[in-house]
C-alpha cells in the first residue's frame, strides 16, 4: 500500500477510519489528562491504575457474561478506582511510602487479573475469547460503538477538565495555598484522579493495560519540552497523543501484521525522545551547547581575554 492509498483509507476505509478515530481520541484524552498527572508527579499512578484495571475487565465479563464496551470499561474503572483507594490507604495508614504502595497495588491487581484470565481460558466457554487483548491491546478490534463510548466518556472528562481548569491549576501548582483559599483540595484531587482513570480506561482496548501508562507519561513529557505555558502544554500533549494514535494506526495498517497498540506506543515514545533531545531551551542538545559555550567564555575570561 502506498502513501496515497493509506491516506485514502484513513479517510474512506470504514475500518481504518474507525480505528484511527478511536486511537486519536484516546491520544487526546490521555495526553491532556496525563499532562496534569505529570505536573502533579503522579505519572506512576497512571501505571498502577491501568494494571489494576485488568481484573476489573475480567470480573465484569465473568459477572455479566457480556463483552459490551460499556460493561468492560465500567469494570475497569471500578477496579482502577479501587486500586487508587488502596494506594492512598496504604501510604496513609502504613509506614510505606507511595512508591512502595504503587508497586504493591500494581503487582497484586495485575497478578489477580492474569490469574482470572488463565482461569477463564481453561474454560471450554469460547465467549471469553478476546479478553486477553486487554493485555497489549488490539486497536484493530475497535468498532464504531467502542469509538462512540470512548468519545462520549473522553469528551465528558475533558469538559470537566475545562470546567475546573483554574481549580486544577491551583491544585497542581500550590495545593496548600489553594486550601487556604477555601477550595476543597482533597475533593479536587479525587476528581482529577477519577478523570485520569477515565482516560486510562477508554484506552485499554486499543493499547492494553501494560502499555497504557506510556500514553499518560510520554505525550506530557514531550509537550513540556516545547512550552512554558500550562494551557499550551496540555493542548500540545493531547495533540502529540492524537498524532501518535493516527500515525501508529497508519503504520500498522501499512505493515499489515503489526499490532496497533505497541506501534502507537513506539510512535509517542519517538515523539518524546525527539522532544527531550532537540527541543529549544530544555532539550539535551540545547543545554549541552549552552554549557559548552559558557565553559568557553569562562576559559576566555580566566585567560584574561574578553568573551
Amino acid at each position, binding site marked *: 500500500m502506498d502513501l496515497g492509498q493509506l491516506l485514502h483509507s484513513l479517510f474512506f476505509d470504514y475500518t481504518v477510519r474507525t480505528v484511527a478515530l478511536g486511537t486519536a481520541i484516546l491520544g487526546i484524552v490521555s495526553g491532556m489528562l496525563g499532562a496534569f498527572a505529570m505536573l502533579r508527579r503522579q505519572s506512576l499512578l497512571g501505571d498502577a491504575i491501568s494494571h489494576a484495571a485488568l481484573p476489573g475487565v475480567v470480573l465484569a465479563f465473568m459477572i455479566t457474561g457480556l463483552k459490551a464496551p460499556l460493561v468492560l470499561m465500567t469494570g475497569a474503572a471500578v477496579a482502577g478506582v479501587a486500586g487508587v483507594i488502596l494506594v492512598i490507604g496504604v501510604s496513609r495508614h502504613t509506614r510505606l511510602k507511595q512508591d512502595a504502595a504503587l508497586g504493591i497495588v500494581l503487582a497484586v491487581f495485575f497478578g489477580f487479573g492474569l490469574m482470572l484470565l488463565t482461569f477463564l481460558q481453561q474454560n471450554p466457554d469460547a465467549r471469553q475469547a478476546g479478553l486477553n487483548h486487554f493485555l497489549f491491546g488490539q486497536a484493530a478490534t475497535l468498532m464504531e460503538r467502542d469509538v462512540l463510548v470512548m468519545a462520549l466518556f473522553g469528551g465528558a472528562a475533558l469538559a470537566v477538565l475545562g470546567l475546573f481548569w*483554574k481549580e486544577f491549576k491551583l491544585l497542581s501548582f500550590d495545593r496548600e495555598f489553594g486550601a*487556604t483559599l477555601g477550595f476543597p483540595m482533597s475533593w479536587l484531587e479525587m476528581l482529577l484522579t477519577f478523570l485520569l482513570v477515565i482516560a486510562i480506561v477508554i484506552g485499554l482496548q486499543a493499547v492494553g493495560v501494560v502499555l497504557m501508562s506510556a500514553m499518560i507519561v510520554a505525550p506530557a513529557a514531550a509537550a513540556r519540552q516545547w512550552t512554558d505555558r500550562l494551557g499550551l502544554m496540555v493542548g500540545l500533549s493531547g495533540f502529540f497523543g492524537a498524532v501518535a494514535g493516527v500515525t501508529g494506526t497508519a503504520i500498522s495498517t501499512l505493515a499489515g501484521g503489526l499490532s496497533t497498540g505497541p506501534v502507537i506506543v513506539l510512535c509517542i515514545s519517538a515523539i518524546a525522545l525527539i522532544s527531550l533531545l532537540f527541543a529549544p531551551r530544555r532539550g539535551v542538545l540545547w543545554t549541552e551547547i549552552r554549557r559548552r559555550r559558557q565553559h568557553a567564555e569562562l576559559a576566555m575570561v580566566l585567560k584574561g581575554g574578553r568573551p
Partner: protein
Amino acid sequence: MNPALEVTDLTVAYHDKPVLWDVDVTAPAGILMAIVGPNGAGKTTLMKAILGLTPVAAGSVRIDGKSYTQQRQRVGYVPQRGSVDWDFPTNVVDVVTMGRYGALGWFRRPGRREVDLAMHALEQVGMHDFAQRQISQLSGGQQQRVFLARAIVQDADIYFMDEPFQGVDATTERTIVTLLKQLRGDGKTVVVVHHDLQTVAEYFDWVTLLNVQCIASGPVGQVFTEENLRRTYGGRIAFVERDALATGGMALRSFAPAATAGGAD
C-alpha cells in the same frame, strides 16, 4: 476590640509525638509579629495549624473573634518558597493572579481586573518588569517577591508568612521590610515565621518564642529578652548581639559576660 489572632491551647501531634504542645498566642490587630524558635520548634506547624492545613489534636484558633473558616477571605498566606515546583509551566503574572482565585470562587476565570491587580502588586514588590517571565527563570529573592505579590492581591486583613526572609538577597529583604511596614500602616496584621534573631527587634513589634511550647509571646520590648531566648534555644543563642535584644543598653550589661562566654563554643 477582638484580637486579630487568638490561639488557645493548641496541640498538634505527629505519630504520637507532640510537635506543638498547649500553645497560647494572642496578637492584637495592626502589629507585625515574628515567630522565632530553633529548628523543629514547630513554627511552620503552628502557622499551618492556624490555617487549617494541619490537623490539630486540641485547641482553637480565632481570627478577629471568629473561627478561621468563617474568616478565610480575610486571611492571606505566603507559604515557604520551597514548597512549590518552580519549574511549573506558568509565568509570574499568572502566579500572582492566583491570589484572586478565592475571591473569584468556583469556575470564574481571572479577567482584566485580576490581571490589573496582579500588575499593581508586582509593581509594589519591584517585579513589574518580570510579569511575563517564566517562573523557573527567577532567583530565590524574585520567587519570594512573586509570592508576596500574590498575597497582596488577596487583600487580606491578617497575613501569615512562612520564612519570607529565608535565603533572599538584600533588595528582596528591603522590599519585604517596606511591604510589612506598609501593611501595618494600612491597619493589617502580619505574622511571620522568622529565623534571624538579629533583626527581630528591628523589623517586628511583637514576637512569639516557640519551642514546641510557647515560651513567651508579647511586645518585643517585653519578651525578646536574653532570659527568654535562653529558655527557647537552650545554650545556642549567644550569637545574638546585645543591641539586637529588646532590653538592650544598661539592663543587658549584666548578662553580657555570660553571652560572651557562650559565644566561644
